[in-house]
């Protein structure tokens, strides 16, 4: 695995590649996907991360950002998707530190697709602003956020789907769900659809709720502690994010790591 500690331009090789970001200062990455690729970024330390990516015409790219940082992470990301290209980004946030993330996706040319998903186990502050813009006809944008909010967690998600005038036959969809275990937690999800074109399809779904008491009682009646129930339910809730990863090795690694991390955070 290559370690990144200063700003650089990356053109991922076809297939699977992995990078570690370990930087004491701000880092700016330029990412150009020119052939089908699965890219894994593990963030170990990076106070500020700027990313600008381009997924070139016809290319299918998937990128996973897995945050393992023990310190606050600030990101500012712009992802541009060209004609008939398809970009999948997954954010895994099961670390115990604050994250402030601003993401803009530009579906620049017709046939561009983007799927952004996040799975967060929130025991600190996590604030995301995810803005997907359909700038051309026949483009397709989707946002999926799943979060489990633990006792000390604070979650804010601003999810924006934007279809400009002239981007006909485009689609913008989003789903954001937050699950909490204790009373008095604050989660905010703001779903927004800003649509300036008639011939489009768009949807948003949102839910914030506590774990059902009857479910908890049922599981406890078989001997599981509250922490074990929290861990099992959270795992079930967040694990689907691993399905967006096509590469099997990467998918299994991520699943194992998330399971471990969830068990660890839930037993705190």
């Amino acid at each position: 695995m290559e370690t990144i500690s200063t700003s650089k331009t990356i053109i991922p090789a076809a297939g699977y590649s992995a990078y570690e970001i370990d930087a004491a200062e701000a880092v700016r990455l330029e990412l150009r996907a020119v052939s089908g690729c699965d890219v894994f970024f593990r963030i170990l330390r990076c106070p500020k991360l700027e990313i600008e990516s381009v997924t070139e015409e016809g290319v299918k790219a998937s990128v996973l950002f897995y945050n393992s940082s023990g310190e606050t992470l600030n990101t500012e990301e712009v992802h541009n998707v060209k004609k008939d290209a398809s970009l999948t980004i997954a954010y895994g946030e099961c670390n115990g530190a604050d994250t402030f993330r601003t993401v803009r996706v530009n579906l620049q040319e017709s046939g561009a697709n983007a799927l952004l998903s996040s799975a967060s186990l929130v025991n600190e502050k996590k604030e995301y602003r995810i803005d997907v813009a359909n700038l051309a006809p026949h483009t397709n944008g989707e946002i999926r956020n799943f979060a489990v909010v633990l006792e000390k967690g604070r979650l804010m998600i601003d999810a924006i789907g934007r279809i400009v005038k002239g981007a006909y036959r485009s689609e913008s969809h989003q789903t954001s769900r937050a699950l909490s275990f204790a009373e008095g937690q604050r989660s905010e999800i703001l779903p927004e659809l800003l649509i300036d074109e008639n011939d489009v399809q768009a949807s948003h779904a949102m839910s914030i709720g506590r774990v059902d008491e009857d479910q908890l009682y049922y599981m406890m009646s078989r001997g599981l502690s509250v922490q074990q129930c929290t861990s099992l339910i959270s795992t079930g809730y967040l694990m689907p994010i691993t399905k967006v990863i096509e590469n099997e090795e990467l998918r299994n690694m991520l699943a194992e790591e998330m399971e471990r991390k969830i068990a660890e955070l839930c037993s705190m």
Partner: protein
Amino acid sequence: MKTLEIKNLHVNVEDKEILKGVDLTVRENEIHALMGPNGNGKSTLLAAIMGNPKFEVTEGEIWYDGKNLLEMPVNERSIAGIFLAMQYPQEIPGVTNSDFLRAAMNVRRESPVPLFTFIKAIEKTISDLQMKEDLAHRFLNEGFSGGEKKRNEIVQMELLKPSLAMLDEIDSGLDVDAIKIVGDAINRLHEETGMSVIIVSHYERFLEMIRPQFTHVLVDGRIVCSGGPELANRIDTEGYDWIYKEYNITPAAEADELNRRPASIGVCAVRESVKGLE
């Protein structure tokens, strides 16, 4: 000798008193049937023993194996050997049966159950209960039919091997064949381990299979009479009316009905009593 001892138990549900002083002793290896009309406290008694937080014990004691159950959280009661096969098992999306069962088995062992042992055990139980083979990988009760949920309760019972099993209308929703499968599983575990059983059922056929030695009739939150199998037989043929007369009592649903609707015909008493509970 693990004994369940209940003394003068009073239980409220949403500030309404459902149990009004129940005394009951269940020793190791004994099978007890709880009978009585619907809405008179049978399920409430089982839920209070298990520790359902919606049921508030206002007075009385519950002891099991020398432990004060009322001071123990639900999961510790389970580890102490108590199992409740629920009338309405919950669906837990995202959590597979096998992850759930392994976790539940591990909490009652010193070291985690080896994977191979676990797979063997779950395969045997699935075939005992004639469940579909993919059960282990499915999410807990999600999308299960009523009958599958009930059988899955017995799968859990077989794997967790409780010393006291409480079965709350486990037979409802099961067809004749499935009742036989479930009855056999309960009898097998009872014979092998000396597990005590408290069973709530309205079906004579099921009670005939399990053959409880003791019968208790719960009316309006009290055990009004207890006896042997002959009591269950008499209720099966004659119903409860003779008990109401002999002990000069009124069942809870009807008492409620009398208070609220003095002269109505064609109202479903059960539905009305359920309304009061919801």
